């Protein structure tokens, strides 16, 4: 699939994943195995869900709705609504991966792996990388994360129930800690920090005052748009 030089970058990506990110996401999504069990689904369903849905919140919604015997159409709608955020996430990574002759199918495959873990590490590492190294690095990183997590989500079917409650609670909060820290680590300039700050400041307000499931949309447009506008003027003033 890759030329020798590209293979080197593929393995560099895999190694980067094994320095932490793959383990964080693998441990935090172990709980999907327990969720599958609660929904009377086999452990293989949790593994398939990790490999195919990948994004954590979508999986949690999916299994939770199945366990609650929600109507199939309503499940599909809820999962889709939670995945709208994948659109801006993909859009902030794919242009960095795309070169002159990158095929559309390659980008489709790359987009499949984009959820928080791969998104945040891409934002942090790809900009400093030569363009031809980015795709192999990306796939090495992403496949390692998804591969390890697919295994642990199957293991979680048996293991999570055996854990003492404080440790199980710790596993459940691993992803918010990791996501927030990794996003802060990926911040490169003022606009990223303003966006993080705007999200922190607006979240309590939108959760309290914006109903109907639109709170995140409002937060994204107002907070993200505001952060961009502020940095746009800041750059104009400096230039």
């Amino acid at each position, binding site marked *: 699939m890759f030329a020798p030089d590209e293979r080197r970058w593929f393995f560099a990506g895999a190694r980067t994943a094994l320095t932490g990110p793959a383990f964080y996401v693998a441990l935090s999504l172990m709980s999907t195995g327990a969720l599958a069990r609660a929904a009377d689904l086999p452990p293989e369903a949790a593994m398939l869900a990790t490999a195919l849905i990948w994004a954590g919140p979508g999986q949690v919604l999916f299994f939770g709705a199945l366990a609650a015997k929600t109507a199939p159409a309503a499940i599909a709608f809820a999962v889709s609504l939670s995945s709208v955020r994948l659109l801006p996430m993909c859009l902030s990574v794919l242009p*960095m991966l795309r070169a002159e002759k990158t095929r559309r199918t390659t980008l489709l495959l790359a987009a499949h792996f984009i959820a928080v873990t791969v998104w945040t590490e891409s934002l942090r590492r790809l900009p400093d990388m030569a363009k031809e190294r980015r795709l192999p690095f990306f796939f090495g990183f992403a496949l390692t994360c998804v591969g390890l997590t697919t295994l642990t989500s199957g293991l979680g079917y048996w293991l999570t129930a055996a854990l003492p409650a404080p440790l199980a*609670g710790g596993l459940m909060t691993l992803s918010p800690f990791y996501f927030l820290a990794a996003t802060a680590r990926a911040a490169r300039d003022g606009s990223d920090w303003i966006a993080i700050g705007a999200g922190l400041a607006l979240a309590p307000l939108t959760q309290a005052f914006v109903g109907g499931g639109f709170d995140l949309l409002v937060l994204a447009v107002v907070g993200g748009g505001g952060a961009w506008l502020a940095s746009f003027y800041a750059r104009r003033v400096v230039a």
Partner: protein
Amino acid sequence: MSFDPALHPYLAVIVLGFLPSEVWRWLSVVIAHKIDEQSELFRLVRCIATALLVGVVLKIVATPPRELAAVPLLARGGAFAFAATAFFAFRRSVFAAIFAGEAAIVFAAWWWG
């Protein structure tokens, strides 16, 4: 729909989980080739995605899992403040943030549990 997810678990994963979320990724591929890496639009999208992620995380914190239901919101917020302190104290270390935050939340769950 006369479709029982419990009888067809794998089909359920594909039709009710995979396809509804994957469409957004497919749509992004269609749009992405119009966005230049150096453009203002790209910067805007990056800001939106970043703010969105912070919002998603805070939503998770506001609605805790069953195991942490007994831990007060203030203590959960405190665990995050502790994680943030460790993050900056160890020169933006992701590992330090996770380690500190996890230690605080497991202790809190045991204390209030």
